[in-house]
């Protein structure tokens, strides 16, 4: 990531954090505010980070995936459903139920990704249409099952959404979390922590391993990869499915880590914003993560402004309106896509069908 972009990102974050610090300063010390905002930022950036990593695996292998939104939504629902079944119907304790839920979410993401791979690689459907199919299908299935399973005829839940097994517990990272005040940043839930670990792992896999070299080759110049004996179709399938697993984990964040319930279309465009983060991060894991943090900060801004609502001075009354502040991530996404903050270059064969 070049200097100019880094400076602009830093500036955006400083402005967002600074606004809250100035408004909340009469109630809390700047350090407390900044710490809490950073902790929130990291947490809410989780699905964006995972969604962007999902996109990186797919697109580095040459498959455009705008179905991440749907994959996350589907995973959020089925992960939650699995956890509820384990907990309520089979009477397992909360923790194993949640773990089964996370696994179910990952598998759901993988299955949707498999469908995307079949559509875009085997049947050579326009990849953007294929992703749209995933999004619409996920919205339809989750909406239908959500209503049918809880309120439909013969529901085992008799028209009542049961109490879910709660959310994944917070982990205190030893030593770091013990630092006074600032330690709050290092108290995070497991999916948030694994997202950061996966950024590092993905970077290593992509740029240091045989798998990564071949993945990038397939996304840059599939015919060249083919002529040296690499199975392009197989590499693309595998990477799209790995991407699906990551999107699935990102989906689990919504219903098993952030809150313990499901709402129709609750991903709310996060899958698309994740793609913008991936693009802004120039298809690199660390770049995407940084971009995801910017979006996370925008969301943290919204949450904190709600919290300090009463303290907002009248000349900034517009900031009291959550609808207006809520525009920030979307406007930021559009701004990034204009390339004003820096042009990025997609993998050369991204989105192109490979025909022998």
């Amino acid at each position: 990531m070049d200097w100019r972009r880094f400076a602009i990102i830093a500036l955006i974050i400083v402005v967002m954090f600074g606004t809250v610090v100035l408004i909340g300063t009469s109630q809390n010390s700047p350090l407390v505010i900044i710490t809490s905002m950073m902790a929130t930022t990291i947490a809410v950036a989780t699905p964006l980070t995972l969604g962007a990593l999902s996109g990186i695996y797919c697109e580095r292998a040459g498959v455009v995936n705008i179905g991440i939104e749907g994959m996350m939504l589907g995973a959020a629902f089925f992960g939650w459903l699995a956890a509820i079944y384990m907990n309520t119907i089979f009477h397992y304790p909360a923790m194993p139920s949640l773990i089964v839920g996370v696994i179910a979410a990952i598998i759901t993401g993988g299955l949707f990704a498999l469908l995307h791979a079949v559509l875009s690689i085997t049947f050579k459907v326009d990849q953007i249409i294929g992703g749209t199919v995933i999004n619409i299908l996920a919205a339809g299935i989750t909406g239908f099952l959500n209503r049918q399973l809880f309120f439909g005829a013969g529901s085992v839940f008799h028209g009542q959404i049961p109490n879910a097994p709660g959310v994944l517990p917070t982990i205190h990272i030893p030593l770091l979390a013990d630092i006074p005040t600032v330690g709050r940043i290092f108290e995070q839930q497991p999916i948030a922590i694994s997202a950061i670990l996966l950024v590092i792992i993905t970077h290593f896999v992509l740029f240091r391993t045989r798998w990564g070299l071949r993945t990038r080759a397939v996304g840059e110049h599939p015919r060249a990869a083919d002529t040296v004996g690499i199975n392009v179709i197989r590499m693309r399938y595998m990477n799209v499915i790995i991407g699906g697993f990551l999107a699935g984990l990102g989906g689990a964040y919504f219903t098993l880590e952030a809150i313990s319930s499901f709402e129709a279309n609750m991903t709310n465009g996060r899958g698309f914003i994740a793609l913008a983060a991936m693009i802004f991060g120039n298809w690199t894991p660390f770049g995407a993560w940084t971009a995801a943090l910017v979006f996370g900060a925008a969301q943290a801004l919204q949450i904190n402004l709600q919290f300090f609502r009463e303290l907002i001075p009248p000349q900034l009354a517009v900031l009291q309106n959550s609808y207006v502040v809520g525009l920030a991530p979307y406007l930021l996404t559009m701004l990034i896509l204009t390339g004003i903050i820096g042009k990025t270059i997609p993998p050369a064969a991204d989105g192109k069908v490979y025909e022998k």
Partner: protein
Amino acid sequence: MQSTADKGFIRRLGQLLNPLLVPFLAIVTAVILGGIIIKVVGGDPIAAYKGLVQGAFGSPSALSETAVWSTPYIFAGLAVALGFKGGLFNIGAEGQIAFGAVAAALIGYALPGWLHTSIPPYIHIPLAVGAGILAGAIWGGIPGALKAYTGGHEVINTIMMNYIALNITSYLLNGPMRDPNPLNLSARTPEIAVSARIPPIFDIPGMRVHWGFVLALLMAVVVWWLLWKTTLGFEIRTVGANPDAAKYAGINVKWIITLTMALSGALAGLAGAIEVTALNYRHELGFSTGYGFDAIAIALLGKNNPYGIILAAILFGAMRNGATRMQFLTQIPIDIISVIQALILLFVAADAIIRFIYRIRAREERVVLTRGWGG
């Protein structure tokens, strides 16, 4: 279809009805799969579909309601198809519809007050509908211009514009444009003036089908004429088929991209404006949920042909309309319709799957509808 006689028959049929065959089989397959899903969750598919057909076509008022449901689908389907013809994927019909509705509602209820006078319908209706068209055109034109002049991909930008539209309409309908009636508890505008209302076709209670439906049919003809008979249509199609060749031919590609998205947005805005002026007489939050995505399915099912879109839109309208009766009769949630529609989209988009299942050989060439980030 394993026996050779069957195969031969299907192949001959395919030659006769080739353009309609794949969409038809896609619908059939999706309906069968939908039936299986209903069965799996413990419902009776036959009863459900019977209820669906009854609710959609069983009586004059059912037919009228199907037409009412189809109207926005036709406009929105045309909007998406026009984009596709220009090589652009407008996923933002949702937001454009919402803005069209808000603008039409505003002119509809507030204009007489601003002018301190009543306005005759032949002026007020065009103004309200025109405001909706303009709002939609702007909302579609912005991502179009961003695509043309900065390269920002229209797919993500139109989706972002959907969320922005949702936030702004939520703000407006909860704030400045909220119906001040003390009995009102929901986020909605006041009713529009009578002079801004498009009348129903029949003066019969329970027959809500309005002149907007006729306008939608006319608009399909207009879009067809525009695309295939005018130089502008030639330019739109050329940019869609090969933007490099379009540039070579002296076409102002950036302007055409912007214009195509604006026209596409205008059609979607018209959908919202007609819903307000001819049906609901106000805009209410959340009324258009899902139209934008359904419109993609309709455009693809209708193969981007304006007449095909009329058929596809009526099918989708009928399903939405009949679903209420289906739910009433069989307790199968209305949402099953979304699943069936998603499956139709799946099979239409991946017609290779349908060709594979029914062993139909491809005759048409694959058409590239959209391009990746690079293009």
